[in-house]
């Protein structure tokens, strides 16, 4: 058995497992609380929970199956073949080699016209995956190795099925968010208002249920939001790691990160707002903000530049030994 230089990062694995375990725990607690509430107060307000779950499920399934189309059209990206110009040929060439190196099926390639140097990958599985780069990523500010590092990072997202994992993980948060909204409006129009007929005999009980539901929804939403952000940051670190090991060039990825993050922080506000919905899948978040505040760190989808650079330099040391 030949020796390997690719030691797994046990710390990252442990933290990710713990995060997912907590997410699962919140999910179970949420379901139990719902069942208990509905059982205690009758099914009068069950319709709200039912609609929240049904709509949440529909939204999740929708984004699961159409993630590639949604993301591509939001980024105004166009799918390209290897013959569509020198830019497309270059990306295809890099993707070809990385796929052969990683033994994975080739994703489709798209290019988005954008003044921000960035890249993202989407699609629920490796066969449906699309890898998108922006035109300004290719305009020469990154050299070939750095570009390859960025693409290897995105291909690791594909290999890890991050779109599927994050979509499923977000399901709970979506349902809780919808429940809060529905319960809030239910409280506003149903529980408090006297316009309804008098035959609704547990009107008072219904109002309490709605309030409790609102409270449960808010707590679950807040906790799962934080956990999902945490999970997202771990997935980014995992993709950095896998990408760096695939190319064998952690430092190239590190220098690409420095260039891209530095550039993005200087882009004017208008473009940033446009880019916001896609942030979760981008290589570097467009809204980098001031990383000083710990609250911003807690809420961000990507780990801080420092954290990412630190991990990459550890990998570099490991490879050189």
């Amino acid at each position, binding site marked *: 058995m030949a020796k390997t230089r*690719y030691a797994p990062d046990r710390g990252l694995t442990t933290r990710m*497992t713990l995060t997912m375990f907590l997410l699962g725990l919140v999910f179970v607690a949420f379901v139990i609380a719902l069942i208990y509430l509905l059982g205690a107060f009758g099914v009068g307000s069950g319709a709200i929970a039912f609609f929240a779950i049904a709509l949440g499920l529909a939204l999740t399934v929708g984004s699961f199956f159409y993630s590639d189309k949604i993301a591509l059209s939001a980024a105004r990206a166009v799918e390209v073949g290897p013959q569509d110009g020198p830019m497309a040929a270059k990306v295809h060439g890099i993707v070809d080699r990385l796929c052969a*190196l990683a*033994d994975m099926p080739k994703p489709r390639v798209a290019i988005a016209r954008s003044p921000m140097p960035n890249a993202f990958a989407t699609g629920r599985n490796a066969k449906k995956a699309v890898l998108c780069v922006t035109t300004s990523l290719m305009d020469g500010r990154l050299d070939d190795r750095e570009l390859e590092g960025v693409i290897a990072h995105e291909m690791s997202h594909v*290999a890890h099925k*991050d779109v599927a*994992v994050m979509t499923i993980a977000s399901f709970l948060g979506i349902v809780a968010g919808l429940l809060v909204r529905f319960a809030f409006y239910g409280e506003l129009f149903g529980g408090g208002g006297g316009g309804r007929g008098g035959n609704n005999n547990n009107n008072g009980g219904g109002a309490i249920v709605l309030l409790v539901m609102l409270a449960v929804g808010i707590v679950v939403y807040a906790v799962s939001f934080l956990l999902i952000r945490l999970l997202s940051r771990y997935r980014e670190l*995992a993709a950095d790691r896998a990408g760096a090991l695939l*190319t064998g060039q952690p430092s190239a990825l590190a220098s690409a990160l420095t260039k891209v993050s530095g550039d993005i922080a200087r882009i004017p506000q208008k473009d940033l707002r446009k880019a916001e919905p896609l942030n979760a899948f981008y290589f570097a978040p467009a809204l980098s903000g001031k990383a000083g505040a710990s609250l911003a760190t807690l809420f961000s989808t990507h780990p801080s530049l420092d954290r990412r650079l630190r991990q990459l330099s550890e990998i570099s040391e490991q*490879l050189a030994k």
Partner: protein
Amino acid sequence: MGFLDTLLGRTKPVPPKLDDLFAVPTAAITLQAAMGLVPTGAGSVCFRAAEGRAFSDIEKDVRELLSMGSEAPQVEVTNDSYGFTWLVCRHSADDVAALVTDLHAVNSSLVDGGFGPQLLCTLVSFTGESGRRLGIVYLYKRGTFYPFAPLGGERRDNALELQVRGAVGADLKIEADLSRWFPVWGAPGL
């Protein structure tokens, strides 16, 4: 990738499969007999250099290893525009077996040094009448071969490639998934 690896965002580097390379000499005979394609005696190993001292030491060792011995092949090293390193060996045209042995020595050195996952492909080149060129490309990660026949200006002769697939299908494990027959434009030694 297993379910757990997906869940935890892990990828295991794919180790290369090496031994299938030794089927090339047989295929070379078939190619010559069936299609008039003769080996040029040149072959190359393509790998992704990793950064750091460890890899550059191994690379140096490999070069020294190949330039030793009485029938030392001509060895040259080139870097392509994608950042991959090509180690090209040239033997006399009729000694494909020696060529394959040398290419295999490169593989073993990288694998022994722990850099097996860095291997991309090996290419053995052939030539035919009227300037036809053909590379038999071996993909380490899949353990399969595919033909690559470049024409001028980044076009490939798909007809010739498919014909070759038919001819050597019995000798070599040909990559079944056509989308993985990725081109290696301007590959050294081709």
